[in-house]
């Protein structure tokens, strides 16, 4: 069998699946009857007669053939009624829910048509074909790529991995996906239908856009982890690390929280540590935890202990890699879906400087925000020194939580590499980094004088560390940003680099000359 042909077929199948997935948005129609509307009003506790009239006039019993005008009708109704209620100071009538979230919930009920009626069929035609196509493309690499070893041939000749037109295309696609997911969930309600059966079987609920995202996240990671297993099959560190991030994503970030929901417990990802989990101390979360009895309190204590005790102790012994490239979900996607783009990180001294300013600013921002939040929570005031806590939370949620972590963090993989968020934005990475830099047994040891300055290590460092700059001087690499992915060591042609945990003494040293010269 011609393996390259098989790969081409796989690519074709994948693109058909992806194309159908995109087309789903436009299928079916939306029609809300007055009974359904009534039930939504009751469930949401909406009392605004302006909103109710507007929807009754413009939406109820009318057929919409695409989600955009359906959505805009609702958004207009919410915004206009809120405007008047605000003017009249009718606080109880204001609809506080995000307009597109409300619109999503209405659309979920109002949507009709093929997708909603044939969920499993459309799952197969989109996810199914996508997975099948990807595997047909990936699996033949066992033969196509040749014997086990480093498989970086042609990376800079391929337009998808050298910021060529395919890279820009993937970039646009990913950004569009994240913008829809975070800001226009009501446009993608059809996508959620195809995962409804899976959601119902786990949590018992219909799928939200976040369930869709969680499921897609796991599928993408599993498929791309298979690619990692093939690409790095000569390297056990990579294989174990990939298995670990995959396990924590699928079990801890996806299955356990959904199962908790089934048992009426709060949705919680046990490995997602504050301040990456930035809304852990938000009042709605604290209230929800406290009101869920002993289990909620356990989560509360666990969340605090994780950040204040477990994280620093583990970083002391193993470096931040135990979290960033063995456990973390953001890291997990970066190390699987993002692996083909790892070399695109910027290695300049300027980028390093920018990184330190940005990532530590975000850490500071998250701590200040949490401080204000807790102060508000315990004092019961909305404002702290004239600043509205809610406003700060909203700014953080939008800028850091959505735009930075999502749109930029993943959307920019094909342009700035796969760790943009982890390097420039993640407050937890900044916290772990400080410990790693100043109090940790972890380092990348440079093997005496063996470095030939070839630059493979620096090029394939996803965090943009100029590894070569240290190795060629015979210095160990001790950098706060290093996530310990181990790829510098893997791609080194001369066996110069080793990630290891050893004594703190002389972890950082600077020989006058690399080993080999005996002049004194």
């Amino acid at each position, binding site marked *: 069998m011609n393996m390259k042909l098989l790969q081409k077929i796989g690519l074709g199948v994948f693109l058909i699946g992806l194309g159908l997935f995109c087309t789903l948005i436009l299928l079916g129609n939306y029609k809300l009857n007055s009974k359904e509307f009534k039930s939504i009003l009751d469930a949401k506790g909406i009392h605004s007669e302006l909103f109710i009239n507007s929807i009754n006039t413009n939406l109820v019993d009318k057929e919409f053939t695409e989600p955009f005008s359906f959505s805009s009708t609702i958004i207009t109704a919410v915004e206009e009624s809120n405007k008047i209620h605000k003017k009249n100071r009718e606080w109880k009538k204001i609809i506080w829910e995000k307009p597109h979230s409300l619109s999503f919930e209405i659309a979920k009920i109002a949507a009709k048509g093929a997708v909603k009626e044939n969920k499993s069929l459309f799952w197969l035609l989109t996810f199914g074909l996508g997975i099948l196509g990807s595997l047909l493309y990936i699996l033949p690499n066992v033969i196509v790529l040749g014997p086990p070893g480093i498989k970086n041939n042609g990376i800079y000749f391929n337009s998808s991995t050298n910021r060529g037109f395919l890279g820009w295309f993937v970039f646009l696609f990913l950004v569009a996906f994240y913008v829809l997911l975070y800001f226009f969930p009501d446009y993608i309600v059809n996508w959620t239908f195809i995962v409804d059966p899976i959601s119902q079987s786990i949590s018992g609920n219909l799928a939200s856009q976040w369930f869709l995202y969680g499921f897609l996240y796991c599928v993408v990671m599993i498929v791309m982890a298979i690619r990692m297993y093939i690409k790095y099959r000569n390297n056990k560190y990579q294989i174990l690390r990939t298995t670990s991030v995959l396990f924590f994503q699928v079990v801890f970030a996806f299955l356990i929280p959904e199962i908790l929901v089934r048992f009426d417990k709060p949705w919680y990802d046990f490995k997602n540590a504050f301040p990456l989990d930035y809304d852990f101390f938000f009042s709605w979360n604290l209230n929800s935890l406290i009101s869920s009895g002993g289990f909620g309190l356990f989560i509360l204590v666990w969340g605090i202990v994780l950040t204040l005790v477990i994280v620093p102790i583990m970083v002391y012994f193993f470096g931040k890699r135990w979290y960033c490239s063995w456990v973390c979900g953001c890291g997990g996607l970066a190390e699987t879906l993002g692996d083909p783009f790892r070399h695109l990180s910027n290695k300049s001294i300027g980028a390093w400087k920018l990184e330190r300013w940005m990532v530590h600013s975000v850490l500071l921002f998250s701590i200040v925000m949490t401080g204000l939040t807790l102060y508000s929570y315990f004092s019961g005031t909305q404002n702290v020194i004239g600043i509205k806590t809610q406003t700060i939370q909203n700014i953080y949620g939008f800028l850091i939580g959505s735009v930075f972590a999502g749109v930029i963090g993943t959307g920019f993989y094909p342009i700035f590499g796969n760790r943009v968020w982890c390097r420039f934005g993640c407050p937890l990475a900044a916290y772990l980094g400080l410990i790693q830099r100043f109090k940790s047994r972890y380092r990348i040891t440079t093997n005496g004088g063996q470095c030939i300055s*070839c630059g493979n290590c620096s090029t394939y460092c996803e965090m943009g560390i100029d590894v070569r700059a240290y190795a060629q001087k015979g210095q160990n690499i001790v950098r706060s940003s290093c996530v310990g992915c181990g790829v510098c060591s893997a791609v080194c042609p001369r066996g110069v680099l080793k990630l290891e945990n050893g004594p703190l003494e002389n972890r950082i040293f600077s020989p006058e000359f690399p080993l080999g010269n005996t002049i004194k």
Partner: protein
Amino acid sequence: MDAPPIIVVGNGISGVTFARHFRKNSTKPLLIISKETPYFFSRTALMYVYMGHLRWEDTQPYERNFWKKNKLDLLQGTVTHINPKEKKITLSDESILSYDSLVIATGSLPNKFGWPGENLTGVQGFYSKQDLDSLEDFSATTNEAVIVGGGLIGVELAEMLHSRGKKVTFLVRENSFWNNVLPKGESELINQHLLKHGIDLRLSTNLSEIIEDKTGRVKAIRTDSGEIISCQFVGLTAGVKPNIDFLKNTDIATNRGILVNKYLETNQTSIYAIGDCSEQQEPQVGRRPIEAVWYTGRMMGETLAQTLTGNKKAYRPGHWFNSAKFFDIEYQTYGLVAAQTENFEKHFHWKHPIENVAITIAYDQNTKQFLGINTFGIRMRHELFDQMLYEKKSIFYVIEQLANCNFDPEFFESFEEEILQKFNKEFNTEIKLKKKSWKVIFKNIMP
């Protein structure tokens, strides 16, 4: 008028290492002249540019403003003549520069042995940036390539061309790959690995003639057995020689390379030579007069920088070490392992039954002193071996320390037990492995 600068001819690892270390201890003006490229790059990385692993700019270890910041002036030009009496050099554009001291670090050139057709289009060595560019030019019109000369550059060129889908025939004069350096078992391991990658390896085969097509481009070669092998590209990789032709009409003494004493001084005052182009008149015991490897070039640069900043030092390389990669097999060596065991030197050899993993340890059969090690597919710690060589440890000690010596990434399968078993059987000993100890491993790390 400004004082004349230290002039370094050549911006390879030797010249640039010299310049960096010179600048650490002196503020005197320094000018680096290079014919090849405006900025220093890592020659060893050229192959990865052709294979698409790296971009050209990734081969340059220092950012552009590094040179300005450190007041290291750069000039791209060709030195055509040196006048030691007036302390002046002439460039190809006929400009004349005065120097305070002159450091020649012009590196090597690929060997050509007068083969018929060796100057045809599509025939070249692989050493310089220009070689990379012309290889790239020929690449689009090359389906079949022949490589002549079984050394490290030859095997790299084979890997490069193979990575771009060319059919590669590899002519090796010896009856096994690089067996003038590697012991038999290891050389055989590489032979097999090349074949597995689909390289058409021709052992004990010499090049007789390179055959030209109508346009002056190579279309085939003829081997010494008379076989004609069609090809559109021929890589000549039968070693390198010092790049010193431009010194022909000067008073600087040369043999194969520029002759230098242990202080790296030539026979002319204020003129020094370092790196591949230099030839030691009195090399250290066990060392060759010309050692064209990255590491020695670097060490000579480091050493001369001391001398020229008022701290005169002799060139004293420590124990020999080297490394290479043959397709997927990494190779490291510490100390000296002869290709053939003779006199007092004996070898202990271990090879994994299936994997491409092997080691050879050389020792003195009388004293059992450890002499050197070759490793294939296992990474080992430079510091520890360097230390054991200085301390003249026995082979028994080395075997005991194997776990500490291992430098493979975490979780890699280790083979120390298998190696130990074979060793104990052959030597009739009952050595046990010492447990991994950070104390031993990091004993020698500089504070």
